[in-house]
């Protein structure tokens, strides 16, 4: 065990400590103190991570494990509290603590003066803790612990502004839908344990090929279950509906949880369990198909949003769709690579959006903003750089390299359909990105909020934006995750045929998209407005605005029936049935009481009646 391993627990213990301090302060801590504790705990974790990364990179980069204690030990069921460090987890760890730290820092600016800032940082720290455990856990139980932990933190942070019941509902929805995914994951766990007798990831990956033939029905079920879990967490079809609503939380939360880290946990999971998915190629293919479908669906939906955060949310779905697509073609490291760059530029975009929102007094409707580029230069810069990376502007942005890689891998894997989807998605991305930037920063200011926008100041505001902007450019793309030994080789590694051509096409698509968008939204604004104000254009707009109506579908299919069921049963029908027994008893009592007339004659008659019956029984009974 290297020196680094013994420090590894610090990466999650520090944020946990932060949570503890904040939670146990019982509200007596000053805002400043809360910020200090909240930010510094993650900052220190980031430092530790950096230290460990250096150690790791300078070593032989082999996987290392550290078992803290045995969690449960019953028979062969022995999940441990054990950490595993390898290229994949260290990449994730870097993203979580690094980007996480920047976002925390930004949040210190964003959240200033808010009620319950202590609570906010407690949740955020707890989130980092859970997320770190998720990626470091060496067994599926521990992974599940982190998995659920991030879920509840996400819930809490979405519902942070608790007074608005819509926020609560959004949080609820987010938790519930991801929980549905979790059920699948849990079933996957049961299945894996029942079959392989272990939950240790390394052991699973090692034993699975021996235990199952490729395409075995059980391994397919297991892979499907894991996929189900990933879909929920990563907001992929059909469990994606929560993400757009999740934007109800504070913007740093959206940046950290719903862009950079948690939503990519599904990608991480599939990459982590690649051994299972490789044994179930059709499920793996399904992953790609779902990714492609999601990226298209979300791309179109993003086109028709007016809330800047919702646009970003759909863009996130869409980008994770890319990652799934990559996973689907077996290009695990491309997926992770895109995960990383996406973390940079999407965090940048969200933070910039946050800057805009705070500056404009929590106005986030694009239709009420506009012309801000002069007032908010830093945010504008962030949007330009982030947007460029998002739409994969060739050569200068990190997004170009990662997305291009994905497209190339799908070509190399001979998945033409997925490739096409990816290209269409790229075009869509450019379109909505430009629409977003133009709508927010150009044209005239459409409300007093925009006119009175106050630019953010200070290190807390500026540093994260600048650093993330740098990472979103080609500089970010120069970081190469050390995945080689961890994940299987990508299909694109063996061949280079057609790579350049594809790069050109992709670059062309991105640029064409940007140009088209600029032309459309700057020159043809009125025409567009007319198009969507009536006729089929309006229906299409509504359809996209509602993100293809999944919410309505779920509402009709699941929510309403459940509500009706709850309503029918709320008085406990079974209990009422037992009440019937009581009523019968009461009825009998009433009947019998009537025999107690108080009259001697009646009593005598009853005696005679009884005697007669007894005599009849005795005389004629036998």
């Amino acid at each position, binding site marked *: 065990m290297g020196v680094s391993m013994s420090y590894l627990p610090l990466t999650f213990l520090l944020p946990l400590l932060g949570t503890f301090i904040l939670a146990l302060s019982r509200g007596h801590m000053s805002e400043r103190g809360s910020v200090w504790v909240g930010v510094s705990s993650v900052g220190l974790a980031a430092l530790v991570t950096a230290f460990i990364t250096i150690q790791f990179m300078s070593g032989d980069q082999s996987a290392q494990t550290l078992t803290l204690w045995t969690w449960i030990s019953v028979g062969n069921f022995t999940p441990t509290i054990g950490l595993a460090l390898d290229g994949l987890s260290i990449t994730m760890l870097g993203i979580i603590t690094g980007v996480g730290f920047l976002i925390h820092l930004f949040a210190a600016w964003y959240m200033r003066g808010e009620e319950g800032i202590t609570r906010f940082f407690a949740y955020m720290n707890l989130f980092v803790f859970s997320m770190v455990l998720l990626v470091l856990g060496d067994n599926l139980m521990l992974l599940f612990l982190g998995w659920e932990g991030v879920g509840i933190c996400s819930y809490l942070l979405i519902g942070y502004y608790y007074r608005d019941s819509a926020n609560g509902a959004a949080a609820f929805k987010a938790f519930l839908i991801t929980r549905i995914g979790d059920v699948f994951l849990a079933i996957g766990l049961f299945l894996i344990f*029942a079959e392989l007798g272990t939950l240790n990831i390394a052991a699973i990956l090692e034993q699975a090929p021996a235990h199952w033939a490729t395409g075995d*029905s059980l391994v397919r079920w297991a892979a499907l279950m894991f996929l189900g879990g990933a879909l929920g967490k990563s907001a992929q079809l059909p469990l994606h509906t929560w993400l757009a609503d999740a934007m109800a939380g504070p913007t740093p939360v959206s940046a950290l949880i719903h862009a950079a880290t948690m939503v990519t946990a599904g990608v991480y999971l599939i990459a982590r369990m690649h051994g299972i998915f490789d044994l179930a190629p059709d499920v793996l293919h399904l992953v790609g198909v779902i990714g492609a479908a999601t990226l298209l669906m979300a791309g179109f939906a993003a086109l028709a949003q007016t809330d800047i955060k919702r646009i970003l949310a759909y863009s996130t779905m869409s980008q994770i769709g890319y990652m799934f697509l990559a996973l689907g073609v077996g290009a695990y490291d491309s997926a992770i690579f895109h995960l990383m760059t996406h973390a940079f530029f999407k965090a940048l975009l969200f933070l910039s959006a946050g800057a805009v929102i705070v500056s404009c007094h929590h106005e986030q409707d694009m239709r009420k903003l506009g012309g801000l580029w002069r007032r908010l230069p830093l945010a504008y810069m962030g949007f330009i750089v982030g947007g460029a990376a998002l739409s994969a502007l060739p050569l200068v942005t990190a997004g170009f390299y990662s997305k291009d890689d994905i497209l190339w891998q799908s070509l190399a894997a001979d998945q033409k359909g997925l490739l096409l989807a990816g290209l269409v998605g790229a075009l869509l991305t450019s379109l909505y990105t430009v629409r977003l930037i133009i709508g927010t920063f150009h044209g005239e200011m459409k409300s007093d909020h925009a006119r009175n926008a106050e630019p953010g100041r200070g290190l807390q505001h500026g540093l994260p934006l600048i650093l993330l902007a740098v990472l979103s450019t080609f500089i970010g793309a120069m970081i190469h995750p050390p995945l080689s030994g961890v994940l299987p080789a990508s299909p694109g590694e063996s061949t280079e045929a057609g790579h350049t051509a594809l790069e050109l096409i992709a670059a062309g698509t991105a640029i064409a998209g940007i140009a088209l968008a600029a032309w459309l939204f700057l020159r043809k604004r009125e025409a567009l407005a007319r198009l969507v104000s009536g006729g089929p254009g309006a229906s299409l707009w509504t359809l996209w605005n509602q993100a293809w109506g999944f919410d309505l579908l779920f509402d009709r299919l699941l929510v309403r029936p459940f509500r009706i069921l709850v309503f029918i*049963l709320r008085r406990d029908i079974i*209990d009422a049935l*037992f009440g019937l027994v009581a009523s019968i008893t009461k009825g009998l009592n009433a009947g019998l009481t009537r025999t107690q007339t108080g009259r001697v004659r009646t009593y005598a008659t009853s005696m005679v009646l009884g005697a007669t019956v007894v005599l009849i029984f005795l005389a004629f009974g036998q």
Partner: protein
Amino acid sequence: MILLWLVLVPFIGGLLCWQADRWGEKAPRWIALITMMLVLIMTLVLWLQGDYQLPAMNAGADSIRWAMEWKVPWIPRFGIDVHLALDGLSLVLIALTGFLGMLAVLCSWKEIDDRIGFFHLNLLFILGGVVGVFLAIDLFLFFFFWEMMLVPMYFLIALWGHSGSEGKTRIRAAIKFFIYTQASGLLMLVAILALVFAHHANTGEYSFSYADLLQTPLSENMAMVLMLGFFIAFAVKLPVVPLHGWLPDAHAQAPTAGSVDLAGILLKTAAYGMLRFALPLFPEASQTFAPIAMTLGLVGVFYGAVLACGQRDIKRLIAYTSISHMGFVLIGIYSGSELALQGVVVLMVAHAFSAAGLFIMSGQLFERLNTRDLQEMGGLWGRMGSLPGFSLCFVAASLGMPGTANFVGEFMVLFGTFPTAPVVVIIGACGMVFAAIYSLILMQRVYFGPSLNDQKFEGLDGREFTMLLGIFALVVLFGLYPQPLLDTTSAVMGEVQGLFQGSLPAGSVPMSSLAGGGQ
């Protein structure tokens, strides 16, 4: 002898409390607290001293070994003894009783302000009865304690309860509770007697001793009928769904201490009874019955969850969640795998804590708001000090958040059951979603949303804070390191599993059904 004291101490303490009423308000409270602490300390001492990891015996009654035993003849006419015995399972549950007993005393510190002595008398008598249930291994004695704990509980609900909504008075709730449990208890008595007479017919001797009766050979039908007698009694108490009607009323109307005891311990006596008696005494019948029991468990999981969603009364809501959780316990018990059985133990302990926490929380809400109606709450988050935070913790525990003991228990049950009954587990796992729904509804309705007014409420005082923190610390402790618990009960559970599986027809079919479905 210490076993006898474990039973006697609460009773003596209760009588003292009653009489201490005349020395002022505080006296009964302190006496009760010290009494329960004594019980807890005695248990912990036993825990530290004893060795509960006896090697699992091969199945068969003669192999039963207790860590500690105490026996004197009681009614020799029928071979009834005062026979107390302790093993890991009972130890854990008694420790739990002691702890929750202390909590119950603490949480009624302010809530109960009249007839304090008599209140504590009842409270301690319940706990004494429960300890008796956990220790008695003479079936008569067991039944004796089983019934005995009902009366004080009845008083607790009827006299110090809250009148519920919709014309449901506390007395009605108390009577309902009593009648359900007593009626089912009589069925158990009949079953016990039938078993004893079967033993008598066989050997010519009366005996109510657990060890003797284990060996009673019974015809298949007879065993099934008697097993059902036991099962129904325990099913009512657990509660299993069609027989659960008493629970929501009792919980909702009981004072906080009553709810804590009810959810925390009394329900556990049922699970204990199944593990200790229903399964080992009738292994074959239980084996045959297992699919039905597990189905009932499933029904309970979902029925409880759905009903919890529809409640307006916060305590009723929590009560229905108990039903849901106990569904998992039932599934685990009848799965018959050691992992699941161990999971049941953890789940019982975990549920005791989380439900106690939730009930204490709702009690504190009631103290501040004077209502338990969810529709009159809302937006309370920032206005109650750390209460919302704790509520969150217990809600998280109740929805089975990893890191809490509930998660460990639930997942062990599911993991353990999966090989024998995959379909049950898959459906049961969906219960997790429902758990999320009802738990979050609770959070949502109480703490989120617009608030009715901006009144600030008192935060938690030191007593309340310590209490809740203590429970939650235990929840997390057992969530992350349940091993001490598991080690203590492993021998017992291994034995139960041995008896249960010993009757399993050879060549059971673990995964085939699922595999078949996958083709």
